[in-house]
């Protein structure tokens, strides 16, 4: 669509709502507003927005689900849906609601409202490349997945997260010898399975190769990328990751970690919320990217975690845009980043902020040089289901690395 057509469409869209004077902005989200700390933060944000926009009331709709279980689509399709949405995103999920024409393209606002200067340049470029120039989301939080470990446990046993993969396996054996589980994982929660696996792929093959595989330019059963799956299977066969974990979900796996029966766990900044709930002393949490034999590839993996979307049938598109401006503003971002309930990486660099927990500092520091791909976020919807099942198959020792990757590839081949 050329610029003029787009501008016309936008004008029509906004004009259609210009006459509306009902000043309630209904927002889908945030998750877990039922938790007091999160409620405190968001009610504060709501109050600030209402103060800055007299006559406006913000109403939160507690989410009943995500795009993955159809709850968002059901809400967006109805006439009583939200005016702006904050939900789990990533190209796989966004494609679903975009194809269903349930959200509007936001490309033009990135220019006209200066959003493109409010997020990391690499992030903007990545978004631009996803739908041939059209952008449908505004990232709210990024994920950066790496290894969480117990500082006290490691100090006591004189362990260190090494720089290379080979040394990492040696470390895991040493941990196992002490009767502690080296690595916990909770594959029943699909995201969790992908976190570990994404880290392994990144460590084994490097960002470039993973990117190629995600774009369909490199076959998943090509040895260059299959090695990550093979390694996972090797870890399981060596007992370094117990097969029984295939039946655990993220809560079950994190329980192992919080109770110090497991030494390491792959998670992102959102894990601070889990830790808080479990009463774990966050000062004891350490974070480092998964080591890699390839120099420069020991990085966290991630991608867009949560984004803002504007529904096609939003009754308050103007307010929704103002809300997004507000959420992207320095004041609000700093406020969120420094709040105890802060659980994620922000979509732009925030100087001079002191995250409330030291481990978040470590995560931000690790992510500053860039993160690798978390495939769960980038794979097309058709493939991601097989992807998660294969990971479960590897952890329960039912399929070999090579065969598992072949299955993923066969789905990719159909889609790409």
């Amino acid at each position, binding site marked *: 669509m050329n610029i003029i057509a787009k501008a016309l469409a936008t004008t029509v869209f906004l004009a259609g709502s210009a006459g509306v004077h009902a000043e309630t902005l209904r927002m889908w989200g945030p*998750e*877990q507003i*039922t*938790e007091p700390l999160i409620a405190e933060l968001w009610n504060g944000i709501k109050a600030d927005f209402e103060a800055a926009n007299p006559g406006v009331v913000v109403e939160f*709709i*507690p*989410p*009943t*689900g*995500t795009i993955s*279980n*159809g*709850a968002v689509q*059901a*809400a967006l*399709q*109805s*006439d*009583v*849906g939200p005016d702006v949405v904050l939900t*789990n995103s990533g190209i796989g999920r966004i494609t679903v609601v975009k194809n269903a024409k349930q959200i509007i393209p936001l490309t033009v606002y990135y220019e006209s409202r200066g959003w493109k200067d409010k997020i990391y340049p690499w992030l903007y470029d990545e978004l631009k490349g996803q739908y041939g120039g059209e952008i449908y989301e505004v990232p709210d939080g990024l994920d950066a997945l790496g290894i969480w470990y117990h500082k006290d446990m490691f100090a006591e046993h004189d362990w260190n997260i090494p720089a290379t993969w080979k040394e990492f396996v040696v470390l895991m054996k040493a941990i196992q010898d002490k009767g502690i589980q080296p690595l916990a994982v909770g594959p029943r*929660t699909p*995201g969790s399975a992908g976190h570990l696996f994404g880290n392994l792929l990144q460590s084994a093959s490097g960002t470039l190769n993973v990117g190629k595989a995600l774009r369909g330019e490199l076959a998943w059963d090509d040895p260059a990328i299959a090695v990550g799956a093979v390694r996972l299977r090797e870890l399981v066969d060596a007992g370094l990751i117990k097969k029984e974990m295939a039946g655990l979900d*993220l*809560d079950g796996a994190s*329980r192992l970690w*919080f*109770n110090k029966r497991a030494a390491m766990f792959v998670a992102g900044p*959102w*894990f601070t*919320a*889990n830790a808080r*709930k*479990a*009463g774990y002393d966050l000062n004891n949490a350490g974070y480092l990217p998964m080591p890699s034999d390839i120099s420069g590839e020991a990085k966290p993996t991630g991608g867009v975690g949560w984004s803002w979307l504007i529904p096609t049938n939003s009754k308050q598109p103007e307010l929704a845009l103002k809300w997004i401006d507000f959420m992207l503003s320095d004041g609000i971002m700093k406020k969120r980043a420094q709040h105890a309930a802060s659980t994620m990486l922000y979509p732009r660099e925030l100087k001079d902020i002191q995250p409330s927990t030291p481990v978040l500092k470590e995560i931000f520091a690790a992510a500053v040089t860039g993160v690798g791909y978390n495939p769960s976020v980038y794979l097309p919807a058709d493939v991601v289901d097989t992807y998660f099942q294969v990971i479960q198959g590897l952890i329960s020792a039912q399929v070999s690395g090579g065969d598992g990757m072949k299955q993923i590839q066969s789905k990719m081949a159909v889609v790409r």
Partner: protein
Amino acid sequence: MSMRSREWPVALALGPVLVLVLAPFVWLIVSSLKSEEEIGRADPFEWPAKLMWQNYLDAWRIGGFGELVGNSFLNVAGVVMLMLVTCAPAGYALAKIPFRGREWMFYALIFGMTIPIQAIVIPLYQVLSAVGLINSLTGIVLAQVSNGIPFGIFLMRSFFSNVPDELVEAARMDGASHLQILTKIFLPISAPAVMALVIISALSTWNDFFLPLIVLISPQVQTIPLGLVRFAGTYASEYRLVFSGTVISFLPVILLYILTQRRFTEGLTQGAIKG
């Protein structure tokens, strides 16, 4: 009587079975009184340091249970009434009125019983949307009743089949219309079957999650199961609220069952008329 003296051994022998069957309940209730940290420690034999009755208050307040409970009651009331209005007459017609196409009608209903709701949920959504009933209790009631009609008719028809045809014939000869026969003769004696239908419909409606997830969008019309899911997030859930919320949602159902359980069991007998 010889039977009574043999009752205690049986009751005692059932003790372990009782324990096994009720253990998950006990676990749930004990867990609902733990703090989030204690739940995190996940020691099934650990007794909470302090009984967190606060969890129940929090679940009620934070989850907006007041509204949810009201909606759930309305939902159940609507479903139960509509089920009776649809299934009783239809059950009677299928049992007592020979008409052409009766067998086909019955098969069409049985067919519906075999379709899982996941199968038709999106077209159902579109139908509801077309008549403007998305996000309304009316809409959800219609969808749930439609889903329950096969079993309801099955039940009513079976019960009515046992009423002797002579009764109908005699009434017809006295000049009664079928509607009069249904309301004046059949319904009064079918209290047990009606009770069974009421309880089964109420139970499945109260616990229904899937249809409300898709149909009820605004918090103002949502029912209890949707309230419980608000305590869950993508990566972290507030389990103390999930557990205590679950127990809260049980209580009305248990009460209903205890009050009506004798009639309910009678109804399941498809009890015949005495004599």
